[in-house]
């Protein structure tokens, strides 16, 4: 089988049939996107790497029983998200490690203007400040572009809960990113989050 030309579903079948190159090809196709999900969800590159390694091993073992009721990408995301959520639950009492502004976190696109780059870093920092239960659905729906239904499936929660958590998270982000100003929204959003508006004003001086 020419792995590069095959569909994900074909590769899963080939893997189940014993093709040793099929599963690594699936991993190669999707690992960047899954890495982004894990990193933005867990906020710690080392934990993200551990979660992904564990998730891929789990998927490798379970691939034989994969049924094409959902897309391979959704199935893989569900496994990765579950690995991340398990880790988040286990570390609930531990402080999280914020992503640095450079290095293993958000990438620096060389062709971007400085202002755009800063904005992306600021958005990533604001996202990292969200409570974990809101960050995961926002990463999946608003950053990665999954539907509410797919996200609900990945997270194992109701669609309404996905919408509701996204709504709460977006309200906080709108404030911390400086899109909402001087509203009576202060009761609804953190005052100690990343205040992009203030940061931008400071940077402009």
């Amino acid at each position, binding site marked *: 089988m020419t792995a590069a030309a095959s569909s994900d579903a074909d590769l899963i079948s080939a893997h189940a049939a014993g093709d040793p190159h099929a*599963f*690594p090809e699936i*991993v*190669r196709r999707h*690992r*960047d996107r*899954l*890495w*982004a999900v894990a990193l*933005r969800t867990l906020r710690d*590159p*080392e*934990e993200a790497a*551990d979660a*992904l*390694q*564990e998730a*891929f*091993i*789990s998927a*490798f073992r379970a691939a034989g029983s994969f049924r094409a009721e959902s897309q391979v990408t959704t199935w893989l995301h569900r496994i990765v998200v579950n690995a991340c959520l398990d*880790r988040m639950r*286990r*570390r609930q009492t531990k402080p999280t490690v914020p992503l640095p502004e450079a290095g*293993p*976190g*958000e*990438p620096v*696109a060389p062709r971007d203007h400085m202002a755009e780059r800063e*904005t*992306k870093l600021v*958005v*990533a920092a604001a*996202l990292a400040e969200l409570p974990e239960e809101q960050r995961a659905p*926002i990463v999946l729906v*608003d*950053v990665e*572009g999954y539907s*509410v239904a797919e996200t609900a499936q990945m997270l194992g929660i*109701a*669609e*309404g809960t996905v*919408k*509701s958590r996204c*709504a*709460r998270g*977006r*309200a906080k*982000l*709108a*404030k911390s*990113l400086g*899109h*909402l100003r001087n*509203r*009576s*929204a202060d*009761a*609804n*959003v953190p005052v100690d989050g990343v205040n992009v508006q203030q940061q931008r004003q400071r940077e402009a001086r």
Partner: protein
Amino acid sequence: MSGSERRHGTPIDPPWSVDLLADLHAGVLDAETEALLRPRVEADPEARAVLEALDATLADLSSLPPIPMPRDVAARIDAALAAEAHGRPAPVVSLNSARQRKYKRAGWGAGVLVAAAAAVGVVAVAIPSMSNNTDGAMSSFPQPSASREVPGAEAKPDLAVRGENFGPVIGDVLKAQNYGPLDNQDTLDGCLKGGNIPASKPLGVSPIQLDDRPAVMAILTAGRPGAFRIVVLDPNTCGPDNPSGVLADSVMSP
């Protein structure tokens, strides 16, 4: 919750809370409440500004760039999958070693990975003089890892292998960057040179106990995707001029 939420006592007239407007924006409210609220919100400049702020927030989020997986992480995952592909399910979980890595990492994942890699030792090549015990049993020690100051003396590494089966520790070694008695990359490079093995930053490196003797296992890339090289060194004797300091050297590929 089923997908939309009926809000009893939802205020019909402004001002509305940001939470309520965010719910409207996200489609949380039931159709009846939304139909009631939407035209009023659209007619209110302040509420409309909140919806626009939420739209701008969505635009910010969707513009975040992709994050490529770092090469070292990709190589580590390839190696773990290659180990899994060569292995058989093996219920080997080193709880003590997992507990020892309480800084930096949660232990349960390591247990899974140890199990995942448990059977790959079948392809590892050990120097015959090391042991004739091939039962592949793995044990764990609660002591901290060895250091250069006490090279393999009192301090014992927490990963132990008997015989030729190195598979049970590969998962843990892949997750470590602990040079143990070799101290640093330079010393490791020297030991690799002694075995005519190209020096490179290891995907994982850790002290191990090989038949109760201190050793260091390094897992290196092998020059092609998915392949990796397992090298076991004697920290007391290995060096640029001593080929016999390399206790084992094998390449695994998918």
